[in-house]
C-alpha cells in the first residue's frame, strides 16, 4: 500500500534497474535512486533503531540531515556502518543491513527499552550505577564498570569490521581563486558570473547531481541543465559528489569527494579523495535545511519533513503515500502539497498560521488539497504512522480536535540556513525572528554567502542574491575591502509563525527534538529544571545535537524549547557552535595513502639493500632502518651480536653508519661558530683533525654529541647522532639566522650525500689499505687517532676517512658519495672477510660502546648535565658557549646528582635489564638511587654489564652493594657499581 513509483518524471532511469539487498532481501531500484528512495520504493519503512529506546525509525528526510535511516552498507571488510540511506547512491549489487537491533530492525528485542523510557530521562546515568542499588552502596569503580559493559553494548550504532579497510583513498591538493560551496541555483549563478570575469572558480556540490533544491521541484531538468552548461562553459571546475566539510584558517577548506562505487572495486580504484582546497575567496551557497518540530511520536516511520516528500516525488518519482497529512508554518509546504495532489494523493494541509498565503492556498485547493489554518499535527499513532491527531491553536499550545487516518505525515517547522561552514570560522549567527532562523551577517574573512544559506527562500531571490555578491567577491580578490554580504531580503509571501513544538494541554507526548539521540522535549525541560540552562550545558546534559547529524535538525528546536522554559527569546539563550566536519568523514579518507607501511617514510641508507643481501636483520632507528645483527645460520640474536662484537675486538668488523647526521659547516667564521656551540674548543682544531664535541641546549642540559672534522681552514664536516640530526641542523640555522647573523657561516645537510662505514678492530687498517689507492695515508704516522684524510679508493672514488672509535678498538670511519656506497662496501668486505672479519649491526655496536662507556641517546635523555654524563672536564673555561650560563644553576650543580656508571651483576652469571631502578639493598622502593640505561652481554668480560646513572656516581658506591630492581620483569638483582669505562680505560687500543 501507499508508495507508488510514478510511470514518468523524476531523475531516475527506468530502463536501468539496479539490484540490491536489504537485510537479506533481494530488491530492485533504479539508476538515479538513493538507497533511501530505493528502499522506500520497495515499501521498506523501518530501517533503523534509535540510540537509547530502540524505537523503530525510517527515512525522515532526503539529505544529509537524516537521522532515522542510518544503516550498514557493504559486507565483510567493506562494511560501512552508520550510512545515511538518503545520501548513499544506489549501485548494482549494493548490500545494506539494519543495525543497532537484534534480531533485526523490524523486530528488535531492544525495543523493550522503550518501556523503561520514563526512567531514562536526560542525565539519568549521572545519578545512578555508582554502587549497589537502590542507594548506591559501595566503593570504587567496580560496580560501575559492570554496568558500563552492558551500557556500552547497548550503545553505539553500527558495527565496524575488524579487518583492515581494503579500499584506496587519495589526498589531493587543489588551488583556486574562488571556491563556491553548493551547486544549487545560487552557487551555480555566482560561479558562472565569476568565471565569466576570468576568475578561476571551483564549485563543490555534496550531492551526486547539481541543481540543489531545483532537483526537488517538478519539471526543472531544463533549467538545471542550462545552469550547469553555463557554468561549465564559463570555465567553472565542477565537482559533484564532493562535500566541503570544513573551513579552516586562511582560506583552506577540507573536502571529500566520493567516487562512483561498485560492489567489487578494481585493483587500483580509489574510493574517495580528500581534498585540501585553498581559495582566495569562498562563496558559501550551501542552501538551507528544513527542520521538523516537536510533536507526539514525530519520530515514527512515515513521518518526514515536508520537502523530503517533495524530493521523493519529483526527483525519485516516488509518491510516498496515498493519504497525506502535511503540517507546518511556512509557504514551502504548499509546493509539496500541490505536487502530491497532482500526483493523485489525497492531501490535507494544516498550516499553523492565521494568515495564509492567498495565492498558494488557492493553487493548492485547485489541485484538490484541503487546507486548514491555525492547526497542526500534534500526535502520531501507530508503530509506523497510520493516523494523526490534529490540534488547533489554543493559547500557546494546541487542543486536539480530531484524528485522521493517513499513510504519510510531512512536517515543517521552518528552514535553517546551512551556516555550519561559517560557524567553523567563528562567525556569530544572528537570530532573525521573522525568518525563524539564524543567519550569519558577516565574518572578518574573504567569505560571501548567497542563496538560501543567507535565508532567501525563493529561487528568484537566490539568483539575485548570488548576482549581488559577485562585485563583492571581485573586490575582495583584488584586495579591496568589500561590503557585508547578505544583500536585501527575501522570504515568504505570508509571514512565518514560530512552530517548534505542538504542546497539548494535559497530554504527555513523546515528542523528539533530536530523534537520533532520543532527546525529547521533556528532556530539555528536565535540563532546565536542573539548571542546565546555558545552551552548551543543555547540549552536553541531554546530548542534543551530539548525534550523527550534528544537530542539523534539532538544535534550533532545542534552543527554542529552552527559551520557552526560561521565558526568554531565542537569541538570549545563545547560539550553538557547529564544529567541523559538516558531515562525517571516513578516517581512511583522511589517512589517504599514509596507511600500513606508508604511515611514515622509510629512510634507507645507500647500503640498505646491500646489508639485506648480506643477511642483515633490520631494526627501526627513527625513520631509518639499520642493521641490527647479521645472524649466521642457526644463530640467535644474542649469539650473533656476541660473535660480531668479539670479532671486532679480535680482528675487524664493518658497520653501516650512514644514518649519522652529517652537516657541512663552511665559511670564514665556521671555527668561531663551532666554538660557540660546542662546550669544548674548536677554534684551534688543526686542519686534518677531528674532535669529539658536546652541544648543550640553552637551558644547559646536554643536547647532542658527535665528531667534527676540519677538512680545511673554513671547511668542517660535522657528524651528529642519528636521532638528533634534523634537530641539530635546524638549531644551527636558527643560531646563524636569528641570533648571530653577523657570522659568515653556511651550513648544509650532507647526510644524504655521504655513505659511511665504520671499520673497527685491530685489523681495520689492513682492510683500508687493501681498498685505498694510496694505502700509506692511513698509517699510524699519517693518520694518528683523531686524524682525518681525504683520499681515493683504487677505483678513483673519493673518500674521506677519520680515525675515530666508538668501539674502543683501532677504528676508522670512511665515507664516500652515496652512489658508490655499495662499491666501497664490496671492497671493504672483500678485504675484511678473509681476515675473519664480520659485518656487525646495532646490537654489537651497542655491546662495544657499553663496554667502553660511550653514551648514546639512552644516556643523553634530555635531563642530563655535563657533570651527570662525566663530560664536565671537557667543558672549556676559556670561552662562553651555548648553555654555559644556565648549566650553572644550583640544582644542576648540586652534589649527589645521579652520574654515569658501569654496572656489573654481583653474581657474574646473572642478568639484569635496562630500565631497572638502582636501589639501596635495604630500600627497594620509592624512586631509588638511579637507573640502568643500557645492558649487554659483554664478550670481553663474559657476563652481563650495563650503563646507568646513580646518585653520586661510581665513587660513592665503591664498597656498597646496590640492587637493580625490575619488578616488571626480572625482580631484584644485586649489582656492583663501577666506572663506566669498563674496557680499556686508558684508550691504548684505539690509539694504538
Amino acid at each position, binding site marked *: 500500500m501507499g508508495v507508488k513509483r510514478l510511470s514518468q518524471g523524476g531523475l531516475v532511469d527506468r530502463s536501468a534497474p539496479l539490484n540490491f539487498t536489504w537485510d537479506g532481501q533481494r530488491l530492485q531500484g533504479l539508476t538515479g535512486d538513493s538507497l533511501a528512495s530505493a528502499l522506500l520504493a520497495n515499501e521498506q519503512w523501518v530501517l533503523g533503531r534509535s540510540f537509547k529506546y530502540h524505537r523503530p525509525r525510517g527515512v525522515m528526510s532526503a539529505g544529509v540531515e537524516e537521522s532515522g535511516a542510518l544503516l550498514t552498507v557493504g559486507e565483510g571488510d567493506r562494511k560501512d556502518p552508520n550510512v545515511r540511506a538518503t545520501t548513499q547512491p544506489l549501485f548494482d549489487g549494493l548490500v545494506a543491513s539494519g543495525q543497532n537491533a537484534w534480531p533485526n530492525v523490524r523486530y528488535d528485542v531492544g525495543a523493550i527499552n522503550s518501556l523503561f523510557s*520514563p526512567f531514562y530521562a536526560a542525565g539519568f546515568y549521572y545519578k545512578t550505577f*555508582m554502587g549497589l*542499588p537502590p542507594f548506591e552502596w559501595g566503593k570504587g569503580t567496580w560496580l560501575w*564498570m559492570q554496568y558500563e559493559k552492558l551500557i556500552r553494548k547497548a550503545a553505539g550504532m553500527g558495527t565496524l569490521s575488524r579487518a583492515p*579497510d581494503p579500499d584506496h583513498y587519495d*589526498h589531493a591538493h587543489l588551488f583556486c581563486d574562488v571556491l563556491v560551496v553548493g551547486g544549487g541555483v545560487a552557487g551555480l549563478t555566482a560561479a558562472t558570473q565569476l568565471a565569466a570575469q576570468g576568475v578561476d572558480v571551483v564549485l563543490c556540490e555534496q550531492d551526486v547531481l547539481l541543481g540543489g533544491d531545483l532537483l526537488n521541484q517538478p519539471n526543472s531538468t531544463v533549467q538545471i541543465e542550462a545552469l550547469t552548461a553555463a557554468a561549465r562553459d564559463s570555465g567553472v571546475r565542477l565537482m559533484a559528489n564532493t562535500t566541503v566539510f570544513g573551513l579552516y584558517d586562511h582560506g583552506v577548506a577540507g573536502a571529500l569527494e566520493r567516487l562512483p562505487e561498485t560492489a567489487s572495486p578494481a585493483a587500483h580504484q580509489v574510493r574517495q579523495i580528500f581534498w585540501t582546497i585553498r581559495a582566495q575567496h569562498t562563496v558559501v551557497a550551501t542552501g538551507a535545511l528544513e527542520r521538523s518540530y516537536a510533536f507526539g511520536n514525530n519520530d515514527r516511520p512515515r513521518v518526514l519533513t515536508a520537502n523530503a516528500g517533495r524530493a521523493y516525488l519529483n526527483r525519485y518519482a516516488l509518491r510516498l503515500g496515498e493519504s497525506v497529512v502535511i503540517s507546518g508554518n511556512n509557504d514551502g509546504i504548499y509546493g509539496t502539497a500541490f505536487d502530491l495532489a497532482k500526483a493523485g494523493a489525497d492531501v490535507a494541509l494544516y498550516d499553523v498560521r492565521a494568515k495564509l498565503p492567498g495565492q498558494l492556498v488557492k493553487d493548492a485547493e485547485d489541485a484538490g488539497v484541503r487546507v486548514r489554518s491555525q492547526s497542526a499535527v500534534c500526535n502520531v499513532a501507530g508503530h509506523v504512522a497510520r493516523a494523526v491527531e490534529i490540534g488547533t491553536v489554543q493559547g500557546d499550545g494546541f487542543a486536539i480536535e480530531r484524528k485522521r487516518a493517513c499513510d504519510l505525515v510531512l512536517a515543517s517547522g521552518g528552514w535553517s540556513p546551512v551556516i555550519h561552514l561559517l560557524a567553523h570560522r567563528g562567525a556569530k549567527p544572528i537570530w532573525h525572528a521573522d525568518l525563524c532562523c539564524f543567519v550569519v551577517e558577516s565574518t572578518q574573512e574573504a567569505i560571501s554567502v548567497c542563496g538560501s544559506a543567507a535565508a532567501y527562500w525563493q529561487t528568484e531571490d537566490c539568483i539575485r542574491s548570488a548576482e549581488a555578491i559577485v562585485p563583492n567577491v571581485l573586490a575582495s580578490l583584488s584586495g579591496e575591502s568589500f561590503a557585508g554580504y547578505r544583500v536585501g531580503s527575501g522570504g515568504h509571501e505570508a509571514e512565518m509563525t514560530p512552530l517548534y513544538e505542538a504542546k497539548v494541554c494535559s497530554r504527555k507526548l513523546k515528542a523528539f527534538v533530536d530523534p537520533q539521540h532520543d532527546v525529547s522535549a521533556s528532556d530539555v525541560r528536565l535540563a532546565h529544571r536542573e539548571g542546565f540552562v546555558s545552551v552548551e550545558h543543555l547540549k552536553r546534559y541531554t546530548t542534543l545535537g551530539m548525534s550523527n547529524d550534528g544537530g542539523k535538525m534539532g538544535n534550533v528546536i532545542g534552543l527554542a524549547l529552552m527559551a520557552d522554559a526560561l521565558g526568554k527569546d531565542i537569541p538570549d539563550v545563545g547560539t550553538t557552535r557547529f*564544529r567541523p566536519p559538516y558531515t562525517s568523514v571516513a578516517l581512511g579518507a*583522511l589517512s589517504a595513502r599514509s596507511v600500513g607501511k606508508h604511515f611514515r617514510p622509510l629512510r634507507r641508507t645507500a647500503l640498505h639493500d646491500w646489508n639485506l643481501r648480506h643477511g642483515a636483520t633490520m631494526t627501526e632507528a627513527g625513520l631509518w632502518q639499520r642493521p641490527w645483527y647479521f645472524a649466521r645460520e642457526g644463530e640467535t640474536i644474542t649469539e650473533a651480536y656476541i660473535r660480531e662484537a668479539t670479532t671486532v675486538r679480535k680482528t675487524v668488523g664493518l658497520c653501516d653508519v650512514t644514518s649519522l647526521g652529517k652537516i657541512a659547516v663552511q665559511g670564514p667564521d665556521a671555527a668561531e661558530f663551532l666554538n660557540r656551540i660546542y662546550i669544548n674548543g674548536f677554534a684551534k682544531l688543526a686542519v686534518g683533525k677531528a674532535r669529539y664535541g658536546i652541544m648543550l641546549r640553552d637551558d644547559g642540559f646536554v643536547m647532542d654529541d658527535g665528531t667534527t672534522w676540519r677538512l680545511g681552514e673554513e671547511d668542517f664536516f660535522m657528524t651528529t647522532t642519528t636521532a638528533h640530526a634534523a634537530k641539530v641542523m635546524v638549531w644551527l640555522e636558527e643560531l646563524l639566522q636569528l641570533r648571530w647573523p653577523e657570522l659568515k657561516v653556511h651550513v648544509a645537510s650532507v647526510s644524504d650525500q655521504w655513505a659511511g662505514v665504520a671499520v673497527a678492530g685491530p685489523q681495520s687498517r689492513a682492510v683500508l689499505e687493501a681498498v685505498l689507492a694510496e694505502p700509506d695515508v692511513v698509517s699510524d704516522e699519517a693518520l694518528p687517532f683523531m686524524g682525518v684524510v681525504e683520499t681515493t679508493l683504487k677505483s678513483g672514488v673519493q673518500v674521506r676517512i677519520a680515525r675515530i672509535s666508538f668501539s674502543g678498538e683501532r677504528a676508522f670511519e670512511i665515507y664516500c658519495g652515496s652512489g658508490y656506497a655499495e662499491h666501497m662496501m664490496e671492497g671493504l668486505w672483500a678485504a675484511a672477510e678473509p681476515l675473519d672479519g664480520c659485518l656487525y649491526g646495532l646490537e654489537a655496536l651497542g655491546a662495544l660502546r657499553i663496554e667502553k662507556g660511550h653514551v648514546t641517546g639512552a644516556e643523553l635523555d634530555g*635531563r642530563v648535565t655535563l657533570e651527570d654524563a662525566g663530560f664536565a672536564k671537557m667543558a672549556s673555561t676559556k670561552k662562553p658557549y651555548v648553555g654555559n650560563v644556565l648549566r650553572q644553576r644550583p640544582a644542576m650543580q648540586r652534589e649527589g646528582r645521579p652520574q654515569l656508571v658501569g654496572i656489573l651483576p654481583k653474581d657474574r652469571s646473572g642478568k639484569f635489564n635496562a*630500565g631497572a631502578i638502582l636501589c639501596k639493598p635495604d630500600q627497594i622502593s620509592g624512586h631509588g638511587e638511579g637507573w640502568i640505561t643500557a645492558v649487554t652481554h659483554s664478550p670481553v668480560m663474559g657476563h652481563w654489564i650495563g650503563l646507568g646513572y646513580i646518585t653520586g656516581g661510581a665513587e660513592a658506591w665503591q664498597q656498597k652493594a646496590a640492587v637493580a630492581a625490575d619488578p616488571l620483569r626480572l625482580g631484584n638483582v644485586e649489582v656492583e657499581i663501577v666506572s663506566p669505562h669498563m674496557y680499556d680505560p686508558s684508550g691504548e687500543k684505539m690509539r694504538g
Partner: protein
Amino acid sequence: MTRFNAWNVLKNGLLGQSGWDRQWRDPEPKSAYDVVIVGGGLHGLATAYYLAKYHQVRRIAVVEKGWIGGGNAGRNTTIVRSNYFLPGNREFYEKSLTMWEQLSHELNYNVMFSQRSHVSLFHSPGARDAVARRYNIMRLTGNDDTELWDLETLKRNIPHLNTEDARFPILGAAVQKRAGTARHDAVAWGYARAADALGVDILQNCEVQSIERDENSIQTLTTSRGAITAKKVGFAVAGNTSLLWQQAGLGQLPIESHKLQAFVTEPLKPLIDQVVVYGVGGAHFYISQSDKGGLVYGGDLDWYKSYAQRGNLHIVQDVAECATAIFPCVGRARLLRHWSGIQDMSMDGSPFICKTPLSNLYLNAGWNYGGFKATCASGWYFADLIANDRPDPVIEGHNLQRFETGAVLDERGAGADCKLHG
C-alpha cells in the same frame, strides 16, 4: 539536595522527573568572600569543594566568565592515568588516581570513571627499556597495577591492532591497569553540585575585569557582576593564566598557550576496550572509546601558539593517519566532530601549584595536556595550599622558582620549549 541513587531515579521515573532540583544554585555575588577561586573549570570547582569540605572554609566563591566546565573541562579526551616517574609528579598523579577511584561516591555523582587500562605501545627495544624505567618507578612507588605486555599478550587483549603491516612493528606495551577514562562534563557538574551543597557560590557569567592590589596582596576583583573582595584568591584558569597574571601586574610566566585538538567518531559498537597510546616516527596519538560508542582520539598540539578554540586541518589528517596506522579497521569509521582547547603549556611540561609574589594569591596552572587526570589532586593540594598557606611536600617542587634553580620537572626531556611538552 535530592540524593542521586537508583531509588530516586525510579521514584522520579514514576513521577515524571518532577523531583529534581537545580544541581547548583545561581546565586547573586556577595561583596566579600574568604576565598575566591577564579576559573570555574574542573580544578577551580574541585578546589572550592575541598576547601569547603575538608578545610571548613565557609565563604567561598568560584567566579567563571562563561559557564562552568566550558573550557578544557569539556575539550579533553577524558583520560585518567598516573604513569609519571619524576619525584613529585609521580606522587601527585598517583594521589589523583586514587581519588578518582572514589570520586563518584565522594560527590554522589556518577563521573563514570572506568578503569579500562592505559596501554602505551612500544616499537623498539630501546623504547621498551625507557618505558620500563618509568613503569618500574610506578611499581616501586605505588600500586602493582603496571605491567609490560609482550606482543602475544597485547594481541590477545587488543586483537585488531596492526601487528602485521605496520610501518613501525609493535613489540609490546606498557600498561597501567587502574588508568582509564571518565565522563568529563560529569566531573565539572559533580564538583559544582557538591560544592554548592556545601555553600560555595558558583558565579557564572562573572568575568574578572580588573584586579586591584597593593604592593603585597590582592584587594578587590572587579567582575562583570560587581566588585568582590577576597581574603585569598586562587587562579585556576588554564590557558588564560598569563592574561590574569598580567592583570594582576605580575609580569611574565613560564607558560605559553597552545591549542590541542580532540576528535570523536560516530558511535560504534564496542571496538577498543582500553586507552591505547602510540608515539613513534614523530607521531603522538591516543585513542579510546566512549560509553556512547564514539572513538575519542587526539594527538599533538597544532604546533603554534593560539588562543583560538579551533583547530586546523593538518592535525585532523595527522591523527587520522595515526588511528589507521595502529587500527587499520577504523578506516571506515567516520570522524564526527573535532574541536580544540587552549592548553597552558609550561616550560618543562609540569604544572604549578604554588604561592606567588603576592601574599594572598595562589597559582594553579601549567597543566599542559595533563589537566583532566590531575583534577582531584589539583583541587586537593591547591585547597590545602590556600587553606594552610604552605605547599604540601608532594607539590613543593611544582613552584615557579624551579627554572631559576634548575630543578625542572621535565618528564619528556624536551627542555624549555613548551610546544614539545605535554
